[in-house]
């Protein structure tokens, strides 16, 4: 009786293994197939577990196709931004309040924007490394927005000014001193369209 069932049984197992291996190639999620646990086996007579081997697989990471460059980048804009007439505004620790010194700088920037009416600018809000990465995103955002609000109050059209917070992700000075932090707490102006 045993031998009669042996061959078909083997065929079923082989077919099943072939199926599961095939499935691995198709990158299906890991299979958690319920397999009956083997009965406790004694050392003297270890028996094979009743079920066929459990296929384990891990899906393969597929890198996405690179995005086309979305950012406008022309040589002439680079020239403007290299020696930008728009000056950065610096901030005290953990505040988005524009100081009187900052207001003077923004007054100057407003004059430049009035003379160059087609310009569209992005104000980047930056923070020093002393806050957390997450909270600094909000702080940088408020720093950029407070400069925009001030410029709009001087008559610059709001839709000429975009804001982006970089938190503490792109420090201008990689140092860990008060001098470096002071440079990194700033609104940085970038001309993105002219």
């Amino acid at each position: 009786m045993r031998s009669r069932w042996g061959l078909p049984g083997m065929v079923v197992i082989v077919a099943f293994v072939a199926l599961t291996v095939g499935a691995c190639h198709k990158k299906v999620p890991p299979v958690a197939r319920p397999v009956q646990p083997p009965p406790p086996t004694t050392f003297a007579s270890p028996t094979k577990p009743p079920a066929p081997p459990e296929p384990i697989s891990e899906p393969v990471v597929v890198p996405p196709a690179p995005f086309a460059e979305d950012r406008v980048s022309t040589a002439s804009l680079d020239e403007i931004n290299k020696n930008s007439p728009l000056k950065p505004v610096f901030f005290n620790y953990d505040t988005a309040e524009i100081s009187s010194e900052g207001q003077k700088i923004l007054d100057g920037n407003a004059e430049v924007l009035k003379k160059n009416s087609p310009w569209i600018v992005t104000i980047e809000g930056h923070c020093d490394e002393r806050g957390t990465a997450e909270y600094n995103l909000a702080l940088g955002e408020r720093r950029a927005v407070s400069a925009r609000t001030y410029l709009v109050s001087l008559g610059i059209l709001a839709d000429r000014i975009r804001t982006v917070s970089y938190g503490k992700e792109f420090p201008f000075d990689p140092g860990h001193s008060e001098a470096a932090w002071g440079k990194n707490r700033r609104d940085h102006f970038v001309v993105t369209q002219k």
Partner: protein
Amino acid sequence: MRRTILVLATSLAAAAVLIITGHAAQSTATPQQQPPAVSLTITGEPGALPRYAVPDFIALSSDAETVEAAKTIGQALWDDLNFEREFDMIPRDTYASIPAARSLASLPFDRWRELGADGLVVGTVERQGDSLRVEVRLFGVKAQQSAFGREYVAPASNSRLFAHTIADEIFQTQLALRGVARTKIAFVSDRDGERLTGTVETRTVKEIYICDYDGANQRRVTVNRSLNINPTWSPDGRSLAYTSYRRGAPDIFISMIYQGTIENPLHSKGEENFLPVWSPDGTKIAFQSNRDGNPEVYVMNRDGSGIRRLTNHPASDGTPTWSPSGTQVAFTSDRSGSPQIYVVGADGLSLRQITRESYCDRPTWSPAPYNEIAYSARTGPGFDIKVLDLATGERRQLTFGEGSNESPAYAANGRHIAFSSTRAGKRHLYTIERTGKDLRQLTKAGNNQTPDWSK
């Protein structure tokens, strides 16, 4: 008519009572359902953890890859079983002298008993084309009885996955503990040193990476040469949501990392969307946005529809995290004058402040059965990782001023926390037990930040 309704209602109530009592009767009459085929649970000496030994697996094929895999699986499995500190793992060099068994039928149990092992994990590795076939047994040494046995077939390319699978099954069958050996950690790194294009200043690209829970198999998953931050795993572990500046303004992107496809549910028109976090059921994403003028917390459906505002305050509200049931959200707000952590119902009601320290951020709600929130807290010049037990209000500190420690993320079983730290100079990722023990460094290259642990 009224009478009919009354009768109907009465009979319905009676039926309900019947069902309830019937159920109760049943549960008292029949014994608790047995877990299927309970096998041997290996115990240690009274009051001690069970001592486990994991020798190299036995290579049944003689090619170099199989021999190497047999070694790798043994070592990785020892490390995996050691991670949860529920077994007393016997150092592997102390049993190097015990001769390798030829097969699982000829194990020198006397020698393992002499060594003091309670549990012995042995296995064989055999080549099958491009795959490996691994057979493993966990023996109770005293009883000389098998407590667990499985066979696996998988591609030979990632032999560590055998070890991780075996470890998780041993945790499950021996301790009813959900292991995390097959979980992954997503994070941000600048390690490739690529320069951002389109800026005058030198800025280094930051991309999303993933690695195994133990730091092995570190791989890059975004390639947009921009700033990509704050990755979070979908509950099914197949997608990562993150903040990307690839279109200029920071916006939320979802990468289906095993298909290579990307979604951009909100399509920012200039507003800034940050810090996505998936609801526990994977249908919603909470995030921070300035779409109404200042940073607030919002919830959207995964496809970007049904945007709902959860907070409403002129101060900054952000960095959300979901409670395990999805009924509450914790977030950071500086409405009191400094960043502190608050909890609000997912309906926007029942707001309460839960920290009153100098500066707290990145709340991360633990999975059940723990009911705690880990966060970054200013403790001096930098930050340390703290945990607040929501039931008792007790607080404990996991790091103590070595570098600045930020962005805690829980393992799926709540027993470990990943975070970033500058303790070794550059910012790197570490894991630590929720009790503050067993610190491990996961990354070595570049700067690495904001880990998130898969579910």
